[in-house]
């Protein structure tokens, strides 16, 4: 049976934390909730867990009214973004805690805990105290504790966000392995993240959430190729997709006194004025391009993010090498016009390079 929610709303103060959220999660699948901070991801996960009761709406799981089942009877597991473990117990006792609570036989507890600790790479740490572990190891303990239960629903609330870069990469790989091997056919995994790359890598069904509202649901590929609105395009790209006010005049696209060829996929566009969207990676430095002024240059890993300005428009481009720029330098850039998105004046996708349209 699926986990089905209908019109969940939760409004503890002036703002909606959840606004008419509906979903249908099938067993054996991974769902990624993608949204910025305060978009309602944690609220949604806590609602599924039963730690919060929504003001309105319904939720069903295995033919039961899930909202009426108390947390401790829901058979779920949850990993928080803070590394939450029981500080008074050692690593083994931490992982064994949910099984002990179920009064599982001691021998079985021993086997299961050992297996679970092995799957997160923590064998040999059984008798350590939680405080003696690094952040990454603590997060693995809480992951092991949630895996050991064989829960029907596994909730992961930004589990990688508080880790440093290297650990995050490492643990993300492990997540993928665990998801691909260890996941049983009848459990649902819900993973929340602010990082679009993470959502793409996990490669499950993506739910884009903003201000408590579901903006789009689809495969990672679908969200990447055809973001439904400007907002989705912003949230699902890092750096956010560049948006420019543009107009079409006789087979040319005009913006900020720049004219480029009208690409084929935009030729049927009805409106004259539209919002042009283009990813940072689809803009390149080019001597024959258009002049922009450097506002900021950030070096991130092996790439350089350039914040550029021309007229009233600001854009970000990413260059796949480390380059030094000074503020107010002039650079010339060219646009990959075959990758231009068009959003109408209400911000809805009217044409994408991949053929999608929501108008």
């Amino acid at each position: 049976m699926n986990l089905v929610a209908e019109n969940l709303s939760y409004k503890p103060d002036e703002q909606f934390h959840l606004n008419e959220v509906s979903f249908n999660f099938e067993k054996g699948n991974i769902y990624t909730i993608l949204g910025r901070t305060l978009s309602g991801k944690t609220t949604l996960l806590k609602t599924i867990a039963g730690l919060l009761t929504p003001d309105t709406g319904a939720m069903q799981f295995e033919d039961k009214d899930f909202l009426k089942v108390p947390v401790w009877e829901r058979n779920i597991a949850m990993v928080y973004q803070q590394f939450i473990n029981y500080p008074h117990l050692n690593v083994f006792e931490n992982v064994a805690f949910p099984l002990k609570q179920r009064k599982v036989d001691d021998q079985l507890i021993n086997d299961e805990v050992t297996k679970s600790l092995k799957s997160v790479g923590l064998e040999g740490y059984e008798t350590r105290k939680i405080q003696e572990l690094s952040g990454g190891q603590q997060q693995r303990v809480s992951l092991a504790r949630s895996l050991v239960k064989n829960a029907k629903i596994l909730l992961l609330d930004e589990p990688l966000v508080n880790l440093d870069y290297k650990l995050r990469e490492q643990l993300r790989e492990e997540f993928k392995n665990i998801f691909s091997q260890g996941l049983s056919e009848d459990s649902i995994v819900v993973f929340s993240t602010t990082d679009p790359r993470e959502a793409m890598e996990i490669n499950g069904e993506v739910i884009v959430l903003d201000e408590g509202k579901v903006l789009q649901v689809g495969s990672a590929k679908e969200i990447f190729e055809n973001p439904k609105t400007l907002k989705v395009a912003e949230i699902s790209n890092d750096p956010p997709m560049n948006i420019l006010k543009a107009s079409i005049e006789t087979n040319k696209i005009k913006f900020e006194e720049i004219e480029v060829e009208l690409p084929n996929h935009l030729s049927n566009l009805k409106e004259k004025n539209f919002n042009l969207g283009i990813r940072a990676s689809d803009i390149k430095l080019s001597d024959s391009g258009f002049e922009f002024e450097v506002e900021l240059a950030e070096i991130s890993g092996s790439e350089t993010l350039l914040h550029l300005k021309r007229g009233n428009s600001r854009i970000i481009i990413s260059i796949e090498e480390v380059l030094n720029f000074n503020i107010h330098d002039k650079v010339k850039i060219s646009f990959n016009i075959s990758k231009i998105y068009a959003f109408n004046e209400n911000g809805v996708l009217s044409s994408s390079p991949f053929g999608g349209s929501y108008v």
Partner: protein
Amino acid sequence: MGKLYKFLKYFFITFWAVFVVAPFLWALTTSFKDFNSVNGGATYIPWVDFEPKLEGWRVLIKSPANGGVDIIEPYFNSLFVTCTASLISIVLGTLSAYALSRFTFKAGFVKNNDITFFFISQRIMPPIVLSIPFFLFLGAINLLDSLIGLIVVYIVLLMPIAVWIMVDFFNKVPREIDETALIDGCNPYQAFFKVVLPNSIPGLIVAGMFCIIFGWIDFFFAFILTFTEVQLLPVKIVALNSSITPWWSLSASALVSVAPLIIVAFIVERYLSKGNLSGAIK
């Protein structure tokens, strides 16, 4: 600059230490003196300045008929009242503190913080203000001059301390720990007893110690609310302070009466210096 600073630092530390310890040393030496040594001027070093005698300490265990100071019964009264009141205060205070820290209460304009303040406000009023209602109240329920009556009053005085310390402590235990316990199959009571409480032991110890200290040293209510049947130690010690009781037995009694607090202070100090309580008290 460096040397002067160091000199001043140690000078003041030494000065303060002497200032604090001197009365204890004074009482300690006096307790080993007899009539001649006490009246022979200020002397401090046993065997050199004066000949130590154990008379002051012997009277502690002698019966009053044989000239003893009769502090054994008040001692056990005090122990019983303080420990019982502290224990009840800790149990009730911890439960209320957990509720105040985790649940949202609302009755009109009264919210969690107002309730916490209400608890603490019991300690803001000067004791003299509370004494009259307490007196009348205990009189009405026939508990004046009884151990039970004193325990009731002490719970009123000690529970705010427990609530105050424990609310602060629970606020620092992440809510997510309780939530994880619920997710792992504990009902709210199990989550509290199996997870939250074991992680709050340092807080419980500090709250307990403060309750014991404040309960043990209270003179005012013990004085007002008892007459002849029941006597607590602080009242007894003050009563001894008369011309009949010799200085040496008075000193010995006073030292015995503060001994439990010195032990408590050492335990608290040990916990504090371990650093695992750094957040427990402000």
